[in-house]
């Protein structure tokens, strides 16, 4: 068992990673509460956005921030488009079906990414944000600004979203819709517009997360697409309900994942962290219910 000194850098990277997972998890939860859709394509849109940014920056020489902006806008636009086209079509269906539908989008994006940016061929891609270079030192730890942004964005999004849902009209409308879309519509809430806002917001977060993860982890279509699993795990631990719990769970997942790195015996298995944590949490939390009744059945 390595000494504490070995673990320290992983605390930093784990917190940064957890912060990005929290950002993503919050996006997933808010969208689910507003529309009933578990947006499994979240990672894929971010991945493709990051790849587009990379290509733009490399091939056309635009300044970095333009590329990142395109990434975020792309993710937001695709998500919004999906939500506006397929949201109404599947609105009355079971959440399971809505979630599987987003897998369709995931496959489409995956195929496009593999076509346009073929994997392998020896080409390794990377996104380097300027914040990678600067940083500061805490005790013996190096912390770069990107990691600060990762954790900071996670905290900021959690707090802002929590406040938004509670104190703004749009946020309250989203909470109402999570409860009952039809009744909310009859109250005069512009349901479609609220949904559009939720989809767009989630997509934008997907783009931001994609960019950060491309920097912190790797710029690879498969990796980035399936990193959604970690955020999803955090959201599931929070039962797709509580923003605060999503944050805590995400930080925990990020931390535990990275802290396992220096432990020889477990290091190779650390990518199982989100699954194990989510499985345990779900099973513990579901022990009490006899049978899950939908609201209408009860």
């Amino acid at each position: 068992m390595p000494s504490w000194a070995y673990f320290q850098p992983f605390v930093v990277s784990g917190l940064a990673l957890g912060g990005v997972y929290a950002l993503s998890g919050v996006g997933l939860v808010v969208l689910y509460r507003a529309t009933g859709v578990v947006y499994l394509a979240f990672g894929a849109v971010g991945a493709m956005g990051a790849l587009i940014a990379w290509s733009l920056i490399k091939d056309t020489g635009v300044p970095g921030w333009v590329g990142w902006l395109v990434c975020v806008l792309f993710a937001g636009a695709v998500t919004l488009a999906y939500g506006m086209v397929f949201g109404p079509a599947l609105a009355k269906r079971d959440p399971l079906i809505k979630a599987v539908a987003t897998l369709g989008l995931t496959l489409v994006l995956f195929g496009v990414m593999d076509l346009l940016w073929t994997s392998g061929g020896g080409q390794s891609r990377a996104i380097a944000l300027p914040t990678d270079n600067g940083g500061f030192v805490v005790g013996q730890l190096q912390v770069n600004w990107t990691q600060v942004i990762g954790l900071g964005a996670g905290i900021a999004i959690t707090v802002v979203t929590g406040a938004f849902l509670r104190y703004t009209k749009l946020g309250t409308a989203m909470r109402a819709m999570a409860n009952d879309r039809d009744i909310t519509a009859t109250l005069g809430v512009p349901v479609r517009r609220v949904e559009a806002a939720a989809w767009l917001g989630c997509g934008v977060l997907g783009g931001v997360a994609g960019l950060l993860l491309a920097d912190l982890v790797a710029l690879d279509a498969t990796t980035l697409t399936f990193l959604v699993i970690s955020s999803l795990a955090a959201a599931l631990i929070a039962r797709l309900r509580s923003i605060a719990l999503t944050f805590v769970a995400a930080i925990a997942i990020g931390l535990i994942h990275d802290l396992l790195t220096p432990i020889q015996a477990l290091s190779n298995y650390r990518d199982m962290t989100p699954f194990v944590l989510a499985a345990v949490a779900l099973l513990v939390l579901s022990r009490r219910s006899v049978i899950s009744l939908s609201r209408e059945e009860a």
Partner: protein
Amino acid sequence: MSGSRAIEVDGLTVRFGGVTSLDGMSLTFEDGTCGLIGPNGAGKTTFFNVLSGFVRPAGGTVRAFGEDLLSIVHFRRARWGVRRTFQTEQAIEELSVFDNVALVYEHAKLSGASRRQDVLGAISFAGLEVDPYATVRTLGAGERRLVEVARAVVGRPKLVLLDEPAAGLPDEETEHLGEVIRRIPEQTGALTILVDHDMSLVSACCETTAVLDFGKLIASGPTAEVLRDDRVIRAYLGTAEFQ
């Protein structure tokens, strides 16, 4: 005391999150057919769900014919003798009428000796005049309800729960349904509880009726009296004055 043919409900309370669906319901259902009425959301289906074992009460007991019903696992209650129909008809489309009705036999491990006769008998008792091997998908809504009723009387039931069996049916079919329901206790010996909004159906079928409102029992007794009770009328019409 096994041998008493009654359902004794004592202090039954059910909570969902912040809502109390049943609030200390205490009532004895005697043999025969009992009605259970009340405005929407009064807790009638919740009560049935407790009897079916789908909902765990926060407190209270239910003794059915001297046995503790709540201690039986939900899927074993069919073997014990509970039969249930649901608000939205749930005759299994993919299966034939025969297979639908025989489901209880297959899974509640009742003796199969006279299974075929019992099933066919139940089908004709319900007045279903279709080929028993027809797939339920080919039947109309009224016939599907009758399939559910047939399923409810098969295999020596002890307690038959009918949840708005006539909902959405035209008058003629409701009448036919009423006739069938009235004969259930004599045909099967089961205690029958009928939930419905159709007051003529309830008065035609039930000797006694209980009324729920906001999870509380507000009246019970002979049907005709209950339906004339002021509190009951107020509960349905929703006037502001409460007693």
